[in-house]
């Protein structure tokens, strides 16, 4: 049972991936339910997206993103980088809606999506593979293990001189 199921699953994965090749990933019902229409509206068609380094331990000061002290000036994302980020956000495989980790939320990078007057902040923790979305009066936190590689590559591109960002590995130690 297990062997055949694994093979069938692999086939299903292949079919999904070839179908989606070159086409932006659309959010599944679960992702829509998690983020909600108002946050998704900003994330899917922003006017601009910027990234900042933040202090994982918090340290809220005048300059902070959702309570996490800013450690850099904002860096604007290119269209391709925005697309990478959007694909990770929209892809259900990024998330793990079944489990919650007992790891504190300790983000290193914050992305700010702006659309008109609306703003959505996305804080990303590379220690715990977690991210937090804040917008429309809501704060949502979820796992993002499935997108560690593209999210880490993106952060490394955006902050090439930051030692901490550059020292993160694709695979988590101990797992």
């Amino acid at each position, binding site marked *: *049972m*297990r*062997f*055949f*199921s*694994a*093979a*069938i*699953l*692999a*086939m*299903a*994965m*292949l*079919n999904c*991936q*070839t179908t989606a*090749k070159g086409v932006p990933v659309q959010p599944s019902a679960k992702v829509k339910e998690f983020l909600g229409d108002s946050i998704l509206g900003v994330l899917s068609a922003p006017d601009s997206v910027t990234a900042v380094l933040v202090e*994982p*331990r918090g340290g809220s000061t005048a300059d902070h993103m959702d309570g996490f002290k800013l450690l850099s000036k904002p860096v604007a994302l290119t269209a391709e980088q925005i697309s990478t980020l959007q694909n990770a956000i929209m892809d259900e*495989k990024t998330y*793990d809606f*079944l*489990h*919650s*980790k*007992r*790891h*504190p*939320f*300790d983000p290193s990078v914050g992305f700010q999506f702006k659309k008109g007057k609306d703003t959505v902040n996305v804080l990303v923790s590379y*220690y*715990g*593979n977690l991210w937090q979305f804040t917008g429309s009066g809501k*704060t949502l*936190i979820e*796992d993002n*293990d*499935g997108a*560690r590689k593209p999210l880490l590559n993106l952060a490394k591109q955006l902050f090439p001189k930051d*030692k*901490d960002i550059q*020292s*993160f590995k694709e*695979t*988590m*130690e*101990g*797992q």
Partner: protein
Amino acid sequence: MKKIVALIAFAFVCSLQAQTLHMLIVADTADASIGSSTLADLQNMQNKAREIASNSGMKLNMKVLKSPEFNGTTTLAAVQAINPGPNDTVFFYYSGHGYRTRESKTKWPNMYVKKPQPGLEFSKVLEILDQKNPRLVIALGDLCNSFSDQSERSANLRAFAELQPSNYKKLFVEFSGRVYASGSKPGQYSFAMEDGGAFTNQWLQALGTELRAEEPSWKRLMAVATKPIRIGSPDQATQDPIFELKEGKQVVAHNTVDENAPTIQPTNTVVQQEVTDAEEETEEYQEDELCPDLAELLGSLKQLDGALKPGIRVTRGDNLYNSLDTVNKALSSVSEAYGDPKLQKSVTGLSTALEANNLQAYKKNLGRVIQYFETLNQDKCSE
């Protein structure tokens, strides 16, 4: 003489009755992501403490520290305030977030307490409790043990067996020693389920089994409670709890990282073996499931064959390569299970072709694999 014996027996019974179970439960119940799970843990452990006390004859002195009072200062104060007698049992339980750093000197994680500093070392709690020198210390933590810094910046329940009331006494009154555990090994996450922490639930189940055993054993209880827990999270298939157990009132060496610490590795090895056996049992193929699965597999393989049209290219590392590699691995498992050299040869051919980025050769071998399963389908599944 008989009177003397009776007096000694009476004194012994009195001393047992005078023993106290000092239970301290600390839970981060207000956390947005795991609060409901830790609340379930808190309730489960409260109930268990009452059950242990009433069945073992110990007096229960329980303190619960939860949100909003929960923080590092109050947790430390509550630990320090425990005042056990030499024959008492102290049970510390924490359910909440946890982490470790590069500077962590022990294998135990830090509890994520926000005041006065982010972390309170689990090993610090063990040290304080150990110094109080009660007969038995049990300290369990259901928390992550994953890294949160960079180097440079700063058992199956015997459902039909009866609970043995005497087992509560054997485990919690008559045993002398130290029982320490946390939900995951260094570097790992611990996971919160809706009905409580994955480790807490496994520990409670293991306790339930020992309470029904003819001869309860802490060693067996902890070995079962710390078996790898299958999580199936994308990047962490299992959660592997850790523990230390010492019989007698000797100080347990818990202040060094794994390698040199006198942990119960042989027991863990045995546990690992038990898990392997269990896995083998679940992998036995059910004959009545063969035909529908075989039909589905054949359908998928044919679909794949049809999708690999001439002109498509594959390169190591691209999406198609990774997907076909996944297919190959799955088919390898199937061929290994069947042990048929003919199938194995074709599956090996798939891998070789993929490594050479040769889709034409891949399709050729795929055709052989399809043919093999079609024959199998005819043999096993035709009326």
